Structure formats: C-alpha cells, structure tokens
C-alpha cells in the first residue's frame, strides 16, 4: 500500500489549501497585488523581493498597492532571512535564507493562492509545450527532466507553456482538459548535460537572465513562450522516467499508471479526494497517455515531436 496524495493539503503546488483558513490579518501599508482567476492575490511584506519576483514570475501581472483588510500571503523578514505565512504557504516555520529562495517559495505560494480561488482548477507538477495543435504535458518529480524537455521543445520551435507547474481545468466548458499559462520563466539546471546539443547550449546562453553555478533562469522571446492567461487544450499526458543511459522510448501507458502519476503530482485544494481520483481516472481515460523513458532530453524531445507535431504549430 502506498500513500500517493492528499486532496486537502496546506501549502503550494507541492501541497496546499486555503479552505480552512481565511486571509491573514495584514498591517496597513503597501503590498504587492497579483492577478488571480477570480480576484487579486495580495502579498504583504514582499517589497524587498520585488526585483526577484519580477524575474521569476515572468509576465504574471502584479503592481504595488495600498493595504486593505487582509493579505493572502505575508512575508516577514527575520534575523535568518525570510518566512512566509498564510494558508497558501507550505511550512511557515521554514527560514528562507535569502531573497532568491524567498521569491522562489513565494512564487509557489502564489500558484497555490491562484488555484485555490477556482474550484475547477488543479495544479500538476509538470512541464508542458504546445506541440502541433495541443498541449503535451510531461509529468514527473524533481530531476525527472521536465525543464530540459520543455526547453528542448522550445528550442525546436514548440511554444513553451511551463516547466514545473501546470495549472489546468480538468474540463473547460466544452469538456476539454485545458492548460492555463501563468507566464513563469523557465529554470534550467547547470551544467547542461552532455548530449544536450551545441544548438541547445547556445539557445540557453542567449536567454539567461539570472545565473548561478547550479542553475539559470531564462527569458524566452515573445512567440517562444505562451503568456500569462493563455489557454490550450491538452492533447496528451506523458509520464517521465529518466535513466542514466539508454535510448529514448515512447510507449502507450497503462491507465492506472497514469492515474498514479497524476495523483502523485497534483495539488487540488478544492476537490475532495474521492472526486479527485474519479476526475483523474476520467482524464487518463479521455486523453492519449504515454510513458517516456529517456536519458537524453534532445533525443527524447525529437521522439515526442515526431509523434505529436503532425499539425501546424499555432
């Protein structure tokens, strides 16, 4: 028996809810106000993170505004760094040592707050690109190769949607599973793996906006990436299995395998557990589902593109 998830979780795209807690009591003063699906998302105390957020959040719109009755998220500076508080934060006892960490966690909390506003929304730990006429979704945990694949697709001209967290409606008004872009910038781990390709290395280098020894954030050009609020119907779900070596293979996946992967990688604070299992079973039944085993993201992206790029990229 394996515990694979909880529908009613606190926190962010790793976990979280906002149902059981109301907004935080906020002090008067300026705060950052972000676009949400139903209403604005307010963050108090994040002015010191504004520059980092502007990088990580890409084109997710936000502005500075005056205080009101409550905040969805509160950022506090402590002697050790930063702490995030509120119903959308995964662990309000965790010290985030610097602005980079704090902004990164705040981005996760903002996604949680976004998803919590609409009962039809879920968030998958997944990357996605528009390949052909639909969104191909790559599911996997940390180090599964999501960012590498999504950026290989972007380098090949397939519009980037996300590389870590995909917000989705399981069914839009027409009953189609639909991805919603939040406009977050991609992050790539460094150094790039051997075999990624010289062209890919150049693609990455030209788009770096923040860079550390182990990772870089990228700004993709207009047309290379979807923008905040863009929507696209999902055309396939792919479960990633990365290996140290061996050729890339793409095979149809068993439905139960995909349901397991969906439930392991989901954040859905508004959906009761039993319905979540049912909805994910429907999702895995109505979409083409695959398992991708690979060691080289370039080879894998070509294999997947050959399968799905049959229609013109929009």
């Amino acid at each position: 028996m394996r515990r694979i998830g909880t529908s009613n979780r606190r926190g962010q795209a790793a976990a979280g809810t906002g149902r059981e807690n109301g907004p935080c009591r906020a002090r008067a003063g300026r705060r950052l106000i972000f676009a949400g699906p139903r209403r604005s998302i307010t963050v108090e105390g994040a002015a010191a993170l504004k520059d980092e957020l502007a990088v990580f959040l890409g084109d997710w719109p936000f502005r500075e505004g005056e205080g009101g009755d409550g905040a969805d998220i509160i950022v506090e500076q402590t002697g050790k760094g930063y702490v995030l508080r509120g119903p959308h934060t995964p662990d309000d006892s965790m010290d985030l040592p610097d602005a980079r960490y704090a902004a990164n966690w705040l981005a996760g909390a903002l996604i949680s707050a976004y998803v919590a506003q609409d009962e039809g929304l879920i968030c998958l730990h997944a990357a996605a690109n528009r390949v052909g006429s639909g969104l191909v979704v790559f599911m996997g945990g940390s180090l599964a190769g999501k960012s590498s694949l999504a950026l290989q697709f972007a380098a090949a001209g397939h519009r980037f949607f996300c590389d870590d967290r995909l917000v989705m409606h399981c069914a839009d008004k027409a009953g189609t599973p639909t991805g919603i872009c939040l406009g977050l910038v991609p992050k790539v781990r460094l150094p790039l793996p051997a075999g990624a390709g010289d062209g890919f290395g150049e693609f990455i280098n030209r788009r770096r906006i923040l860079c550390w020894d182990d990772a870089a954030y990228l700004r993709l050009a207009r047309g290379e990436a979807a923008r905040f609020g863009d929507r696209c119907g999902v055309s396939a779900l792919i479960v990633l299995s990365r290996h140290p070596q061996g050729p890339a293979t793409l095979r149809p996946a068993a439905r139960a395998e995909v349901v397991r992967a969906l439930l392991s990688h989901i954040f859905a604070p508004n959906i009761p557990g039993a319905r979540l299992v049912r909805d994910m079973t429907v999702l895995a039944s109505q979409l083409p589902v695959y398992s991708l085993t690979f060691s080289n993201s370039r080879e894998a992206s070509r294999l997947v593109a050959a399968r799905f790029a049959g229609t013109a990229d929009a």
Partner: protein
Amino acid sequence: MQRYRRNPAVSETEVDDEIFLVEPEGEEIYYLEPVTSGLWRLLAEPKTLAEAQAILLDAFPDQDAAAVERDVAAAFEDMLARKLIVTVS
C-alpha cells in the same frame, strides 16, 4: 476472535485491476499494491487474521509460510492504523 472488514466510509476506485482508496477523514489517497489489493478484496466480507493468512497461504504455496503470515499481519496492522479497515465484533 477479532474479525476485520473494509471501512464502509472509505471510497474505492478500481482502474483496470488496480485499486485506489480515499480515507474520508484526512482525505489521504492510497494506491494498493497487488497483495494488499487481494487482502482488500477479501475483506469485502469480515475475516479474521488467521482466515486471511490461510487464504493467502493457499494462493501462494511456494512462498515461505512464515513470511506470508508476517506480511498479512503487517498489512492488516497498516490498514487498520490508516482507518482503511475496521474491526467487527
């Protein structure tokens, strides 16, 4: 002797031959591996631990009997702790 059965409040979804359970209080979601799935199916009707162990021993005659009995006891204990099964008098 103590008998066990499925907790009727637990939600069950079968996908192909695999079973997913949702425990109602904590909303925890579980995926059952094959042996635990077999036990879950057995517990549609109340069974004692000894009855379940005997059925599993019949089903897996080539396996080490002590290991099978130990695994079944551990699975019962685990499912009971997670409120997936309950005792009946």
